[in-house]
């Protein structure tokens, strides 16, 4: 290949933007996370920014707020990721069963929530949960069932998880359905000649073949879990059960903008970003291994 400057010109805009909005913020966050505003002993009681090494990390990792937020986020992920992907996978496989009716209607309807911004979806569901307007509560009382309080401390995690599932199931369904449609038809014909039922074809032929797509969907679902913010933050005005540090990002926001402690916020951001990097890289490895294991 000829020597040319063209590739550098082509990647220049991306590299400049990456540097400004990815690398520099990461570096700046790490720098801030190692510092703190302290009153120094010069007798004047003035606050100075000083180097404190890993003090912020220690306090963040032991602060009950952050630890509880982290656990809550893991609980949220443990509900959302399997339920959302399970539903998306089931819908994708069912859409591909021959002679199922109304598939176009179902497909578009299930995909529709993707077009609804997370904040708007949370507002929407917030009204569906809110005592006084909730049709779910109306329906329960009309059927003389116990009326659920969907925003109580015991139920709110599920209510928030439901919003995440509702918003994500359609997109993942389409991604998986697209992968299913990419499988050559001859494979099914061979299986049918051998007397396989549609359920067997779905589980033994289609599922292994779309596992790579499922792995990608799983990794992105995990990443999305670790940055959950919009849903609980939007529901917070409607419910006393959602504190200002309900998930780590809410606590980061509170520290940085309400408590004016950007140093702790920076340390928490680094922990969260590193955690995401490790978890998603590990998930990618493990799931991929399993995916290839299934292929053989």
């Amino acid at each position, binding site marked *: *290949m000829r020597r040319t400057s063209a590739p550098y010109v082509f990647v220049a805009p991306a590299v400049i933007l990456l540097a400004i909005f990815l690398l520099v913020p990461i570096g700046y966050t790490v720098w801030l996370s190692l510092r703190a505003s302290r009153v120094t002993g010069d007798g004047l009681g003035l606050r100075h920014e000083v180097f404190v090494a890993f003090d912020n990390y220690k306090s963040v990792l032991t602060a009950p707020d952050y630890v509880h937020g982290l656990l809550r986020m893991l609980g949220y992920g443990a509900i959302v990721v399997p339920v959302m992907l399970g539903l998306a996978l089931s819908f994708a496989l069912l859409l591909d069963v021959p002679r199922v009716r109304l598939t176009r209607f179902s497909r578009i*309807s299930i995909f529709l929530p993707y077009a609804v911004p997370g904040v708007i979806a949370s507002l929407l569901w917030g009204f569906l949960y809110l005592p006084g307007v909730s049709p779910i509560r109306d329906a329960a009382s009309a059927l003389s069932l116990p009326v659920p309080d969907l925003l109580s401390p015991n139920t709110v995690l599920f209510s928030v998880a439901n919003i995440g599932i509702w918003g994500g199931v359609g997109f993942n369904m389409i991604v998986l359905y697209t992968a299913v449609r990419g499988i050559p038809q001859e494979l099914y014909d061979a299986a049918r000649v051998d007397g396989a039922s549609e359920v067997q074809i779905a589980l033994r032929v289609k599922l292994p073949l779309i596992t790579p797509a499922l792995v990608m969907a799983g990794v992105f679902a995990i990443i999305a879990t670790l940055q959950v913010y919009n849903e609980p933050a939007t529901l917070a005005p409607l419910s006393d059960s959602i504190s200002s540090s309900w998930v780590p990002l809410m606590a980061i926001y509170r520290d940085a903008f309400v408590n004016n402690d950007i140093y702790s916020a920076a340390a928490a951001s680094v922990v*969260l970003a590193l955690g995401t990097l490790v978890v998603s890289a590990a998930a990618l490895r493990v799931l991929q291994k399993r995916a290839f294991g299934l292929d053989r």
Partner: protein
Amino acid sequence: MTTTLVDAPAKTAGKVSRTTTKSRMLPTIILILGAFYCLVPVLWVAVAATKGPTELFTTFSFWPSVHGGFWYNLTHLLDFRDGIFWRWALNSLIYAGLGSVLSVAVSTIAGYALAKYRFPGREVIFLTILAGVLVPQITLAVPQYLLLSKLGLVNSYLSVLLPSIISPYGIYLSRIYAAAVVSDDLLEAGRIDGAGEYRLAWSVGLRPMVPGMVTLLLLQFVAIWNNFLLPYLMIANDRRFPMTVGLYTMLNQGASQPALYSLVVMGVFLSVLPLIALFLFLQRYWRLDLVSGATKG
């Protein structure tokens, strides 16, 4: 393989099937239940938008009101603070429209270069992009805010637009897509004919990438339209809010002025409509095999 939302071409016709009525009823019923779950909240908001501020809390949820609540909500929402709702809608359109176009331009050309050239630094750039895919953008929002505030850029359109342009995932997808669809033979032939690299990129490289670019454009448009934390941090002036932040602040005021709730419901209804229309109109251009990694040269 171009699977889109609309296309459901009849599967291999005339094959022998032992499918009974029962075994196709069950999948149909499950799918319709799924559709019901996804549609009901949207339908509810359409019904709730017909109710005035007093009816919202007193009438049965799934019964639309005919007492002029719809008109009341609509006019009061559009008059709210001198028609600021229109301003928010326009802002959302500016952020998402301009941001997604620029983002696709930057991602496509970078993806093309990373896929089709071997040059020093290429691996480092690609690894940085992969790390960028895995680091949640949202954790960067706070440091981005701190940096832009040092530069005096916060509270401006640019403070939301610029960070929205860079999409590591978009670059990553563009690279995979360019590797799959841009022909090396055509590029070589062009070079032998003496075409310059820039002309080649334009005429041989970018043309086959157009379907992927459209998909990326839609993904990015939705991502920016739906973004909340970034504009929420960056923008303090409510005349520069996008719709998501605007409606959120209205809901917050609603806690002290419950009369605003019915206006927020109307706002939610109005903000959902254009995206749904956009989707129904553009769904044929989706190429989501790109997202699942099915496009491999």
